[in-house]
């Protein structure tokens, strides 16, 4: 045994005055009485020199000395060698992934893990140190190594649930780094439901104690949801949904789809045990918005019962047609959805007007100008389509008319030629062009003359595009073919770019790089708002509009919000989550993890390992000495007041 503070033993000298006070006789009080008769009788019955009288005096002295000894030893802080040798360093790895939110263990698996963690903290022995690492979407040290129980309890309670994937293996690696270099006994205690690959192998490792949580329970979940705009239909969109039955029983339920709370489809599903089903839906909507898929069967994990996707909205496109008159051309643009058509009829000899410049920040916002049989002196801003240009322009030199050209080659790779075949189209006449600008020929005649091509603008404006179709529409049957509206729809889609077709739903725990609109009013804070209304500021690098956000550790719709002065300062989190004011960008985040949706415990997780219990003598020796002193002083008080001792 060693003494931590041996100098405290000096206080044992206080025993000397205690003994002296007991040796000294107490001076008795003098009280005048009328007779000594009765006193003498009592004196004879209970002689002070009896054995008990002497023992009583001695016991009183011994009790006082024992009390002093207990206090002095407690101050000296004795410690056994075996206590020093048994000191441990423990890292508590708490799995707070999505599957830990399952409520098969009330109130949840994560709460059960925290209760288990509290028991381990309360069982720390003298000299033990413990750290806490969370193993959710991102392994994180919640508390470094310490022996302070309150700090550990606070850190354990501060671990919040996430909908992210399990990162136990990475968290254990982090725990081992925390434990490295220690001479004490090292352990990593993993509190998990085992919902990750390699759990059995991890449980077999010598320095790991794995405590399994949760029961065997089935779960139905949406494991994938994506929505994108149709490449063919400007207002069409496609939805892909994957639903899995991670249980040992067949399940019958309904899959419901709605767009901004408007129901769009309900599908009854009947899945066999372990079965997965993928469904694709095609719908139309120009507005877009939040698309939600949900299953109407409640189970122990709610995070995968609902999934979200963001459907980009489609705004009307301004198309200006300058023509001497062609009813087919006008009708084809009128027939294409979301086209805001303006027709300018030209007279012979009239100078070709240039439409006003419209500022736009994205390709889809730029106007489209269609010149039919006319060519302006300078190219207008925006996207431009030339149909049968009759004279030379900035990008080509016009030649003679081509008679009866036959399409000998068309570009099968270009999205502009999707679902189009021009080889059987009658073209009595076309205009021969010698292209001056870099071009991609989409269709050319047998003589190598371009019939349909896209060109680069000389100004280097990469967003603004130019296309030219040399066919004489008045003589050709192209306007009567189904290829013609498809050709024009493809062209308008290509002008708009493909950026707005898909805003991918992200898996929970992902980190995303997003592009934000340029800052118009500096000083206004931009925040990332979680589905439950929590906000965190976004720092956009100077001169950049791209920013990294995440990890998105909760399922639902996340928003990047431009906060106005004093906005939402007094709102609660739920109100904030539903507030669409100032939203710059929305990101859908889904569980989308078959492993997390499977709540059945993995094979190979052992029962609670032995050796984690506190055992005997978890406290330092001074603690027991002081407790003994407390009991002794109370007992001695009773004996003294009742005159059992002097």
């Amino acid at each position: 045994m060693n003494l931590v503070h041996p100098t405290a033993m000096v206080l044992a000298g206080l025993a000397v005055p205690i003994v002296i006070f007991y040796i000294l006789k107490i001076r008795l009080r003098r009280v005048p009485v009328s007779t000594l008769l009765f006193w003498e009788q009592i004196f004879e019955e209970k002689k002070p020199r009896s054995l008990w009288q002497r023992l009583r005096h001695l016991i009183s002295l011994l009790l006082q000395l024992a009390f002093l000894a207990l206090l002095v030893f407690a101050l000296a802080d004795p410690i056994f060698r075996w206590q020093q040798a048994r000191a441990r360093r423990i890292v508590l790895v708490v799995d707070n992934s999505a599957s830990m939110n399952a409520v098969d263990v009330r109130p949840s698996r994560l709460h059960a893990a925290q209760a288990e963690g509290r028991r381990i903290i309360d069982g720390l022995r003298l000299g033990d140190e413990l750290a806490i690492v969370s193993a959710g979407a991102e392994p994180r040290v919640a508390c470094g190594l310490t022996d302070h129980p309150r700090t550990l309890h606070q850190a354990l309670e501060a671990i919040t649930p996430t909908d992210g994937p399990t990162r136990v293996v990475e968290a254990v690696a982090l725990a081992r780094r925390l434990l490295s270099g220690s001479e004490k006994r090292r352990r990593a205690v993993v509190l998990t439901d085992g919902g990750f690959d390699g759990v059995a192998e991890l449980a077999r490792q010598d320095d790991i104690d794995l405590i399994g949580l949760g029961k065997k329970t089935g779960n139905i979940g949406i494991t994938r949801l994506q929505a994108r705009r149709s490449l063919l239909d400007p207002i069409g969109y496609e939805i892909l949904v994957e639903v899995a039955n991670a249980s040992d029983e067949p399940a019958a339920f309904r899959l419901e789809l709605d767009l901004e709370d408007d129901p769009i489809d309900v599908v009854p599903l009947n899945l066999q045990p372990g079965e997965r089903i993928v469904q694709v839906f095609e719908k139309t909507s120009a507005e877009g918005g939040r698309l939600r898929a949900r299953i109407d069967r409640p189970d122990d994990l709610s995070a995968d019962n609902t999934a979200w996707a963001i459907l980009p909205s489609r705004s009307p496109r301004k198309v200006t047609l300058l023509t001497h008159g062609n009813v087919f051309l006008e009708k084809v643009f009128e027939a294409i959805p979301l086209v805001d058509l303006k027709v300018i009829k030209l007279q012979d000899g009239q100078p070709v007007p240039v439409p006003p410049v419209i500022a736009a920040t994205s390709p889809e916002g730029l106007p489209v100008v269609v010149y039919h049989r006319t060519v302006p002196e300078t190219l207008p801003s925006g996207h431009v389509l030339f149909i049968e240009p009759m004279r030379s322009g900035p990008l080509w030199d016009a030649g003679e008319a081509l008679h009866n050209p036959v399409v000998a080659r068309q570009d099968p790779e270009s999205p502009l030629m999707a679902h189009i075949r021009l080889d059987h189209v009658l073209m009595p006449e076309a205009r021969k062009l010698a292209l001056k600008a870099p071009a991609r020929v989409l269709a050319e005649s047998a003589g190598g003359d371009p019939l349909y091509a896209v060109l680069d603008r000389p100004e280097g404006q990469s967003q603004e595009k130019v296309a030219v179709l040399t066919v004489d529409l008045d003589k050709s049957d192209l306007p009567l073919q189904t290829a013609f509206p498809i050709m024009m729809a493809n062209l308008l889609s290509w002008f708009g770019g493909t950026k707005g077709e898909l805003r991918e739903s992200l898996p929970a725990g992902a980190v995303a790089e997003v592009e934000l609109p340029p800052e118009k009013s500096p000083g206004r804070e931009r925040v990332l708002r979680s589905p439950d209304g929590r906000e965190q500021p976004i720092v956009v690098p100077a001169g950049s509009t791209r920013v990294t956000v995440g990890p998105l550790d909760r399922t639902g719709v996340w928003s990047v919000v431009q906060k106005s002065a004093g906005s939402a300062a007094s709102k609660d989190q739920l109100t904030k989550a539903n507030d669409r004011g100032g939203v710059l960008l929305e990101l859908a985040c889904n569980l989308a993890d078959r492993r997390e949706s499977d709540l059945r415990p993995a094979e190979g997780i052992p029962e609670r390992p032995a050796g984690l219990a506190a055992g005997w003598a978890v406290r330092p020796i001074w603690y027991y000495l002081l407790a003994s002193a407390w009991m002794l002083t109370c007992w001695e008080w009773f004996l003294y007041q009742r005159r059992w001792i002097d």
Partner: protein
Amino acid sequence: MSMISWPFPIQLELSRPWWLLGLAVLPGLVYYFSRSLVDLVRWQRLLSLGLRGAIVILLILCLAGLSLVRPTRDLFVVFAADRSASVGEQGNQAIAAYLAKAVPHPRDRTIGVRVFRK
């Protein structure tokens, strides 16, 4: 675990607050004091009661883990050392030399070295 708030910038903490139940013996001390058979004058008896009560209270507070909580002023430093392939042998030697100079006692818990590489 419970914190004790004061109007002063000092915080006290009881790590085992259930030990405060041990103060329940104080009424017992007073009871046996009132029924005492000890032949002492009143002021002596009152003094003994006061001293005994103080001893019991101090022992209970000690067992309850009364401690002073204050923010640490210790400085903790973490060195992040790039050991990737692009650093090269010469760079690694320079890093090792610097760390050996900056971290003279590797077991010092206020200093940490974190090496990162692929």
